[in-house]
């Protein structure tokens, strides 16, 4: 009839292999968490840590070591020099911590050092970012607030949406806000609040028996932590655009999860109901081609940007790519099978227990 990348009548036993899937996810997550703990959190870019980024384009290749020596100056403490983008673009990224020097003084220092040591080589400062400690702290705070409100809104939405229990969802939002209010009274840092809000959401979901919300939340943490861990492994910097990418992944991951969960609920209502395992398996299989096609087209588009979009946007695309892969994987192998682990009883949607339907 038509092309099928994924045969429509697949019947993979996703629930059956869940232990392997959990193990793989757990290993990846643990590596990520371990790396983050070991390194004392993600490596912050200038947006959050404060400091100076200077992107310089030369008209011919230059030796990085010589450049490092030339730029060594008290105005540029903690100097890091690295190639940026394509090798034939001859672009270099100079990274330094804040000093007492103003941006204009730093411009002079860079221009003088380059003119003195690379007199034959033309250069152009293409980009200069100087973020002072106050602005850096503010941006960090804002990013954490964004993440926190994302957790708050999404936790409320998914508990209301998946469970049709908006009262409970409202309760959840109130409880979360209360937790954070108390933390604020104790002057806890925002990062604590984010971790606390995440844990509180998980606990509340478990206590209130919001199993779909809990599953979605686990998938979401999975899909954000794995890219973040890999990013940490690659020693990449986390800045504002990376946070934007992570929040987009949150949206994308939930999108995937919601579609499969909707199918699970539909199958529970309408079909002769076999065991929960079979319902989950059937639902994941039914939505499999959609999951993979959408993941695929999104990957095609983002990969095009990764390869062709230039160095400035590359890290953003990398996070998106990692997030889409993790999200697609988790909605098939983790988010749905996990439903049975938390609460195998289907108490809020009574389904007639009949004899086995077709397997």
């Amino acid at each position, binding site marked *: *009839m038509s092309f099928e990348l994924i045969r429509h009548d697949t019947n993979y036993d996703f629930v059956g292999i869940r232990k392997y899937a959990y193990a793989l996810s757990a290993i990846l997550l643990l590596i990520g968490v371990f790396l983050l703990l070991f390194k004392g959190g993600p490596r912050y870019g200038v947006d959050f840590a404060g400091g100076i980024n200077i992107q310089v384009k030369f008209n011919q290749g230059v030796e990085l070591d010589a450049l490092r020596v030339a730029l060594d100056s008290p105005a540029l403490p903690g100097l890091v020099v690295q190639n940026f983008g394509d090798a034939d673009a001859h672009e270099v990224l100079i990274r330094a911590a804040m000093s007492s020097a103003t941006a204009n003084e730093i411009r002079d220092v860079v221009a003088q050092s380059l003119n003195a040591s690379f007199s034959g080589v033309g250069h152009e400062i293409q980009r200069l970012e100087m973020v002072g400690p106050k602005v850096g702290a503010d941006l960090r705070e804002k990013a954490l607030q964004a993440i926190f409100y994302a957790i708050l809104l999404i936790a409320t939405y998914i508990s209301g949406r998946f469970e049709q229990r908006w009262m409970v969802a409202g309760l959840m939002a109130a409880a979360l806000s209360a937790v954070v209010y108390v933390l604020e009274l104790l002057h806890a840092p925002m990062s604590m609040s984010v971790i606390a809000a995440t844990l509180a959401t998980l606990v509340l979901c478990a206590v209130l028996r919001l199993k779909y919300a809990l599953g979605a939340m686990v998938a979401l943490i999975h899909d954000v932590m794995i890219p973040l861990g890999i990013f940490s492994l690659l020693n990449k910097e986390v800045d504002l*655009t990376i946070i934007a990418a992570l929040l987009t992944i949150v949206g994308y991951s939930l999108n995937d999860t919601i579609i499969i969960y909707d199918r699970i609920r539909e199958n529970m209502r309408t079909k002769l109901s076999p065991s929960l395992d079979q319902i989950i398996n059937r639902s994941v299989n039914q939505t499999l081609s959609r999951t993979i096609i959408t993941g695929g087209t999104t990957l095609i588009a983002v990969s095009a*940007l990764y390869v*062709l979009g230039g160095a400035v946007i590359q890290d953003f695309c990398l996070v998106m790519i990692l997030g889409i892969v993790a999200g697609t994987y988790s909605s098939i192998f983790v988010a749905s099978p996990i439903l049975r682990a938390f609460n195998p009883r289907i108490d809020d949607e009574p389904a007639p227990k009949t004899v086995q339907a077709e397997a």
Partner: protein
Amino acid sequence: MGSLRWRAIVAAMVVLLALAYILPSIPAVRTSPLGVVLPDAEINLGLDLKGGIHLTLGVDLDTALSNAITSYGQDLRVEAREKKIALFRPRLQGKTKLEFVLVKADQRAELDALLSSRFSQMRVVARDEQGNGQLRYLLEPTPDYVKTIETLTMDQALKTIRNRVDQFGVAEPDIRKQQGNRIIIQLPGLADPKRAISIIGRTAHLEFKLVDETADAQTLAKGIAPLDSELAYLYDKTPEGAEIKTPIMLRSEVVLTGEYITDANVQFDSYGQAYVGMTFNARGARIFEEVTGSNVKKRLAIVLDGKVHSAPVIQDRISGGRASITGQFTTEEAHDLAVVLRAGSLPAPVTILEERTVGPSLGQESIEKGMFAAAVGGIAVLLFMSIYYRRAGLIAAFEVVLDMALILAGMAAFGATLTLPGIAGIILTIGMAVDANVLIYERIREELRSGAAIGAAIRDGFERATLTIFDSNLTTIIAAVILYQFGTGPVRGFAVTLTLGILASMFTAIFVSRIFFDAWLARRQPGTQPSI
């Protein structure tokens, strides 16, 4: 059938409206006769695409408050003297408290009356007996006064910076007050960030002070200033350009400030050396005439931001309200100084808390690469869709193009700014836009497989998928709204394109696709299968 026609008309109207908003962004169209009819909307490019400077300035409100309290003290002393109340040495205590001594303690009631009637901006926090019949006062500003000073300072700083930026002739500068003591400045397409920053960030506080001629070389070397005098440094340059710094003793009293300047411009002396000529307003001219008249043969120092630029000997009474600042200026330096003097001084020093500069070539490169990537990614997705879903895929492909148009039109209509992450948002939408179509098509295929009639399969496919599409997209919209709320420039651009993209894709997949399918159904020969 009638409903189908109406839906087609609505869709066509939306497309036309989108075109009307996109076309003005193309320069050739804007200048053509068509440009007159079309809405005056253009897609703004962010600084990361256009090139330019983004600055966050912090205004030193503490200093502004200290300055205000110091001049409050001077005013109080003058008014008290008129009422025959002697106040001794009003001075700043810490950063925000004013201390002075009332010489005769029995005048306390009179002073308190003066304080509460004319000087109620500050309140007395302590009165200490000094033992010798004197009374030491300590005053602090009322919270209202602090707020007033801060508001005035911010407003004046904003106005001064606007004036200065106007002097560059930057197209569409964006200068706004942010929470607290911050001012955000965006200057698109400026080629010389260094110069712009030095002009904007300069306090340009101009003062004229008499030189304290009693100080000899020894006192100067020790650096101890006598009462009512202060040590300063005269800055000059050798012909080679090296800076020379000579100590000089100045009388503390400010005889004239830059606030009386009405005009300033670059002039050249007979050796071709640039200097800045200033013109005072009537009041300034009168003060200048008095000061010069009563201090002939003495030296008058011209102090800019605490640096003494020159201290010429007053040869004669100067009337006419003209003065000049000389020094070893280059023409450019003299020009910039004239600019800041004309625009007025900043009420308090500012510091640059954040600077982001993108050169025009990098911005252009980012646009070209981003657009190229979007085209390649888009075509790849469209090819896949039309192969995989055949004619239905072509519909999806057409809709992706329509989505792009709607995003751009929406941006133009709302005056949103396109940034590099914004382009990423558009590209992401290409991938995600087809999701809605995929959901519907997979559902229709499923219905067909389970033996539903074609019409019913299409109807059920659309209806069942619609709810899922709404729900699942809502989460991404939540994420985007949060990003918009908490993000800065480039990230906001991403949030905008992402939201518009999702809305556009929902509209096209649910509403526009259905028109195509229903039209096909209406004209279908019995027995033909849909191409999906």
